[in-house]
């Protein structure tokens, strides 16, 4: 009788224990599901915000175009005004293409190999750095005075780097001009990469804000900018 009762209580305890653990697991997974849903929600909110921002930019761009168009229409006959506008656009396009020396407030980064033989700066490192600078809205970039333009390649061939077809030796001095208001943002964005380069890869790196920095135009001996295979439409 006593044995039977003990057995009974033991069994109840076991069942209760199983229930408890099962229950606990179900609550946990419930939490996980709602967490993933919240994450999904968060991602969608972010996407919506980005889309709205995209559209805002597009709208601004369209308004600008329309303003310019009406300027042309108003200036019909007044060729001087149209020419001025064209020359203005031409000047901007030259800066964008890297056809002129430019100056402005910016960042100077000095990047060098570490002390040991395997702490060598590779092309992928420079590519990442340049990409981060572009993401931070840098407007003109050079590496050891080679202007980095749209089709600039970066290739590591021990013991030097080839950029725009020219050999470049470390230390690498990377200059970038950015909108002064976005400079701190740019430096912040760079922080992660700088940390990895210094702490994980053992490179020597310094980053400095510079009030006025000069970036030379792309070499115009015809070896960098080539368009012979392009047919303008």
């Amino acid at each position, binding site marked *: 009788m006593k044995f039977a009762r003990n057995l009974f209580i033991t069994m109840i305890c076991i069942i209760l224990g199983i229930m408890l653990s099962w229950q606990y697991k179900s609550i946990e997974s419930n939490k996980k599901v709602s967490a993933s849903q919240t994450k999904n929600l968060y991602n969608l909110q972010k996407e919506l915000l980005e889309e709205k921002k995209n559209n805002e930019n597009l709208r601004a761009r369209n308004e600008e175009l329309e303003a310019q168009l009406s300027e042309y229409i108003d200036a019909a006959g007044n060729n001087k005004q149209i020419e001025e506008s064209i020359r203005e656009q031409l000047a901007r396009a030259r800066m964008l293409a890297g056809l002129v020396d430019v100056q402005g407030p910016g960042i100077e980064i000095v990047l060098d190999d570490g002390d040991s033989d395997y702490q060598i700066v590779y092309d992928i490192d420079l590519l990442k750095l340049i990409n981060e600078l572009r993401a931070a809205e840098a407007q003109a970039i050079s590496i050891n005075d080679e202007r980095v333009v749209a*089709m600039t390649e970066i290739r590591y061939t021990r013991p030097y780097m080839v950029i725009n077809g020219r050999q470049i030796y470390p230390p690498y001095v990377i200059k970038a001009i950015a909108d002064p208001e976005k400079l701190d943002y740019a430096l912040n964005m760079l922080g992660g990469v700088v940390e990895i380069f210094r702490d994980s890869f053992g490179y020597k790196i310094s980053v400095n804000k510079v009030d006025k920095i000069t970036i030379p135009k792309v070499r115009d001996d015809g070896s960098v900018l080539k368009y012979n295979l*392009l047919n303008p439409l």
Partner: protein
Amino acid sequence: MKINDKSYILAVLFMVFGILLSVQFRSVLNSKKNKPSVAYQIENLQNEIKTEKLIGSKLREEIDENIKKQDEYIKMFMEGRNDNELAREWESVKLAAGLTDVMGNGVIVHLADASEQLGRNIDNYVVHDVEIVEVLNELKKAGAQAISVNNERIISTSEIICAGPTVRINRTRYPVPYEIKAIGDPKKLYDALVNSPIASEFLMFDKKFEVRIAKDIVIPKYGGDINNLVDGLEVIE
């Protein structure tokens, strides 16, 4: 004593049982409270995103139209003025800056995530921003003269940076898959890509890396406002 002992055990059991029940009840209540509203919000958001995308594509069309009109005005002006030098400079600078639609022979590359994840680390099976940068660098090393990613022209300021599940290029977001077009010497571009370390990395994790030679590829111009891209620069004469 014996009766006391038993009721003590039972009391503890029922207490545990009671707590269990209340926790359970709360959790059920919670999930009931959350679920419909979250699902509803998600649906709402998806609809809003769809609307925004529609607005975006309409705006893009309008912008294209306006750029075309503007080009016509400029062309008319140039013809009327008969200034060949200005016209020539205008065309060549626009070409250098990536502000002209161009056509030529080259390669088309398709990149996409692996169709199934075989290993543990999901990072190995998706396309990353840096990998696109590497592919572009291979193309540039092989002498590409114009490149676009998902029809977004690569210009001197073009970033290719991860933004959540998408990649941001020229301040616009693009989801996977990626189509890269490059104009140059087709054979050189093809060989460079197929033999590149980045190609073997893609193949190792079963990610899509398809290269094909193509004729008369059209690469669109950069359609954004370039004033934003150079307003911090001052020309040195």
